């Protein structure tokens, strides 16, 4: 057909149709009709043209977050070369995805697919931008669903609601993605769900800028006991039991006293209980929790936790700032200063960083954008960094939020002396102009006279702020329970919902109501029955890794494990030039020379420590632990606990029992005792017995029971 005739026909089509977004035979809207097609076929994903720099010279906004920019890219850029208005079927926009010509992204759209016809129709209608309907919201159904069995059929639907009151079924162009596609399979054409394994599964529904989570549950077990009779200490147990009941999970029994005592000591003070404490404080109770929370060891250990969160470290061989910062933090914890006040002091910090601890908050990372990412992860539990190049694809944060917050931090001179810098600014990459200071998700800060950090600090610690308290209690929860209610702990977003949202809400409310006291929340968790559960999984709850039916085996941090090894061996580790005998958890310099801490996998705090797996990670570390001088040299040290006991004539059996108490905080059972006794008795010389005892201690220190908190 001649070109002009095609055009005329296209124009006739245009003139005959009412100006509505696509229904049958209507005008195709770029925003409402085409962008969902791009998303459905992956064109605007981060791996394709939605990448920050685009792909193959063609850049779309990530998941269609910027329709205006997308329209320019599709219809206007390079003199409109991607659409051929004279012969729509020859448009690059069609030839590429149907692979009529070479396409780096492959064959993503079949020739006969309805979406191709929609693209073609849009071009034939003139490739215009006009949007006739403004999307107000998308409603997905169901949003929560508990299936009785794996085979239960389920179809997802999505309905778009427009500002004019109309609605449209957009299931066909809504993308449903299972967070774990080994658990749930969704047919992209029909939106039918197929469960592949039981558990709680999250499906993300995406239509235009709307991203909604769908929670699907298939019970993990068939437990049907009398849930009302389960012991409950506080609301934590109420909430967890409710979820466990829904999932049909069996519950492991309460841990024995010795295990629980060790767990509490390690969680609250980072230390093993001494043999004396083991004897005195059975059973572990509220009194013990109070004692531990009020001990100097608590302050030391939790100062380490906060120091890692805030990435306190020396820079450029200048340790003064890190030391003063570390001490300030320790003072805050010792005085039980509210976490809101700590955060506020950090946000508003000024002064000489060698003298004022909080001022170092602005010297942790370099540059206002990096400060945005650091601050948002620490205090908001959100990865705002995604919004640097584009609106966050899975959250509400926009590029304006990111660069608006950066504009606030640009007004801080982060030199050795931290002070306001009223003329500081950052360039917004989209507008190429200075970004306007802005509270995330909120209003612009227009005033040029006052420090914009003040409204930021007020907003951050406001009790109505949904992110601040939740981010912290989630971290405290993870520290005690092994897994955050939201994981990762710095990735709060609507599309990454908490496993127990009501529990998170109640913990946050309690945190706020009690002056943001870290001790209070830790006590609440440590007092719960859920915390006290055994780490020994039952056959019927083994598959559970997030509903707390049994306690986790938590890897220990490098500093804690190093101290435990020193305590068990009774031989101190030398850390740099610090006086011999200093504990690793109190070191102010995170980079102090120490091969032991390196081997055990310490976090150097250059980046977030929250992804650090802990001391038991990595084959190299294991091999060092097994074969290297970390254990072997100190095992044979003349003043070691083992050599001192042998020198004092302690019998081998007593040595075995003592080391079980010191390292594992329990008595050896009869099988274990028999094992070691039998082997020791068969050795003819003291030298050989000594050697076996060294092997025994080495074995204890390398075993999982020692190197984890469980």
């Amino acid at each position, binding site marked *: 057909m001649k070109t002009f005739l095609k*055009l005329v026909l296209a124009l006739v089509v245009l003139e005959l149709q009412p100006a509505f977004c696509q229904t049958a035979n209507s005008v195709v809207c770029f925003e409402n009709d085409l962008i969902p097609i791009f998303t459905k076929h992956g064109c605007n994903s981060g791996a394709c043209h939605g990448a920050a720099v685009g792909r193959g010279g063609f850049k779309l906004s990530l998941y269609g977050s910027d329709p205006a920019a997308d329209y320019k890219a599709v219809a*206007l850029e390079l*003199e*409109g*070369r991607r659409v*051929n*208005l004279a012969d729509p079927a*020859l448009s690059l926009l069609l030839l590429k995805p149907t692979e009529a010509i070479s396409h780096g992204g492959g064959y993503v759209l079949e020739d006969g697919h309805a979406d191709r016809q929609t693209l073609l129709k849009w071009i034939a209608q003139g490739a215009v931008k006009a949007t006739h309907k403004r999307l107000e919201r998308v409603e997905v159904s169901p949003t929560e669903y508990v299936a009785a069995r794996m085979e239960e059929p389920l179809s997802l639907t999505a309905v778009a609601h427009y500002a004019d009151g109309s609605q449209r079924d957009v299931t066909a162009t809504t993308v449903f993605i299972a967070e774990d596609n080994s658990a749930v399979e969704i047919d992209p054409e029909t939106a039918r769900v197929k469960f592949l394994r039981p558990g709680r599964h999250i499906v993300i529904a995406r239509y235009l800028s709307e991203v909604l989570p769908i929670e699907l549950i298939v019970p993990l077990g068939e437990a049907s006991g009398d849930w009302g009779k389960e012991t409950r200490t506080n609301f934590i147990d109420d909430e967890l039991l409710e979820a466990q009941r829904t999932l049909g999970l069996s519950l492991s029994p309460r841990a024995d006293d010795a295990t629980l005592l060790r767990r509490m000591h390690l969680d609250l003070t980072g230390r093993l209980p001494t043999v004396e404490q083991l004897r005195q404080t059975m059973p572990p109770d509220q009194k013990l929790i109070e004692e531990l929370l009020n001990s100097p060891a608590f302050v030391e250990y939790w100062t380490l936790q906060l120091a890692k969160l805030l990435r306190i470290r020396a820079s450029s061989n200048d340790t003064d700032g890190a030391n003063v910062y570390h001490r300030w933090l320790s003072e805050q914890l010792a005085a039980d200063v509210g976490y809101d006040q700590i955060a506020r002091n950090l946000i508003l910090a000024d002064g000489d960083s060698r003298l004022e601890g909080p001022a170092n908050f602005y010297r942790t990372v370099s540059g206002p954008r990096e400060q945005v990412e650091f601050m948002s992860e620490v205090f908001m539990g959100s990865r705002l960094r995604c919004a640097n190049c584009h609106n966050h694809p899975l959250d509400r944060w926009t590029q304006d939020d990111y660069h608006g917050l950066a504009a606030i931090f640009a007004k801080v001179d982060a030199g050795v002396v931290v002070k306001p810098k009223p003329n500081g600014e950052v360039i917004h990459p989209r507008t*190429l102009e200075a970004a306007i200071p802005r509270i995330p998700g909120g209003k612009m800060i227009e005033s040029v006279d006052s420090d914009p950090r003040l409204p930021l600090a007020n907003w951050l610690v406001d009790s109505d702020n949904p992110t601040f308290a939740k981010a912290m209690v989630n971290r405290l929860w993870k520290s005690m329970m092994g897994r955050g209610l939201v994981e990762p702990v710095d990735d709060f977003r609507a599309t990454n919902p908490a496993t127990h949202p009501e529990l998170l809400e109640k913990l946050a409310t309690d945190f706020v109501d009690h002056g943001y006291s870290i001790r209070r929340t830790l006590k609440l968790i440590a007092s719960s029955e859920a915390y006290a559960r055994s780490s020994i999984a039952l056959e019927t709850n083994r598959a559970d890794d997030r509903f707390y039916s049994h306690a986790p085996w938590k890897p220990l941090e490098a500093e804690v494990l190093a101290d435990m090894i020193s305590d068990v061996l009774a031989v101190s580790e030398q850390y740099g030039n610090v006086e011999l005998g200093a504990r690793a958890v109190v070191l102010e310099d995170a980079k102090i020379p120490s091969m032991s801490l390196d081997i055990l996998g310490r976090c150097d705090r250059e980046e977030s420590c929250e992804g650090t797996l802990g001391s038991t990670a990595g084959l190299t570390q294991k091999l060092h632990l097994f074969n290297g001088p970390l254990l072997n040299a100190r095992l044979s040290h003349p003043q070691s606990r083992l050599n001192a006991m042998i020198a004092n004539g302690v019998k081998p059996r007593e040595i075995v029992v003592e080391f079980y108490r010191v390292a594992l905080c329990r008595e050896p059972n009869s099988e274990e005792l028999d094992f070691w006794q039998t082997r020791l008795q068969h050795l003819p010389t003291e030298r050989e017995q000594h050697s076996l005892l060294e092997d025994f201690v080495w074995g204890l220190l390398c075993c999982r029971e020692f190197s984890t908190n469980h």
Partner: protein
Amino acid sequence: MGAIVLPRILDKSLIAIAVMAVRITPVLGGLLLSTTDAHSVEPPITGIAFTRSGSEAVACSQLGLTVVSWPNLTVRHTVETSVTNPHSLMFSPSFGKLAVAGGRPSQQGMIQVFSWPELRSLQVLAGHEDSVMALAWRDEETLISGSLDHGIIVWDVVSGGQKRQLNGHARGVTSLTLLPDKSIVVSAGIDQSLRIWKLDSGVLQRSLSIHTQPVNALALRPSVAELPMIASASADKTVRLWQPTLGRMVRFVRLSAVPLDIDWLPDGSQIIAVCDDGVVRWIDPDTIEVTQETAALEGWIYSLRSHPTDGGLLIGGGNGQLRRLVPESAKPAQ
């Protein structure tokens, strides 16, 4: 004043650039002559060239070539071209030939050379692997083309063969201009750089990388006895002035919109930039200030040429819009 909408006429010569009506709208310092229907959906006008006398102009779009009279923009005739998706057109130095460039996107770049005024096809040059976006005539027999395939080719128009390839741009080439002595060609492209090439040897003399976004257009300052000066327009919203033989950026002006094409007035006294907000901006090259802004078209203005003698401008944009713009200073006395 609203646009006049006339019924569509199934006449190929008229629909080619959708000349539906002429409306005259007073604008800042001149008259605006519209040749389009506000509701049409025609392809954009991507290239414009004036004939030697200036009594006619040629415009190109996906619908082909259209020859219009000047100044009243009456369509004289339309011509189909074997170049699909044309992006650029240029008369040879003698005005005896007209080259039209474009091609099938991501497949093949193509240039068709016509005789002028007969518009008889003389040669088709095919060698690029993507659309040809820019042209520059060195002489009657030598044509230079820049393509989105990243390459530049120097063609022998008579034989249709390639004389040389200039490879160096990391991304597509969007604009070319020859310096007055015809021995140096300057190219610019999506890789944000200007590159200066010795035409005879093909040696890349220097790269100028100050723009922070793709460069959309280049234009050589005419009629100035000093060192050659080039203006570049970029998606970074700047127009920069360069002395390419020295490799020096002389000065720049930041605009409030993206300039898509630029040209100089024939006396070199003003740079004209047409932008993606539909505004034409006049820039004083010495003070580097925007001296006048005129809202001229709806949407993006892709192409621009200043008339060789009368001070008028011809601009082409989206939706097949082709307009004459007469600055205040060029209006005849009442």
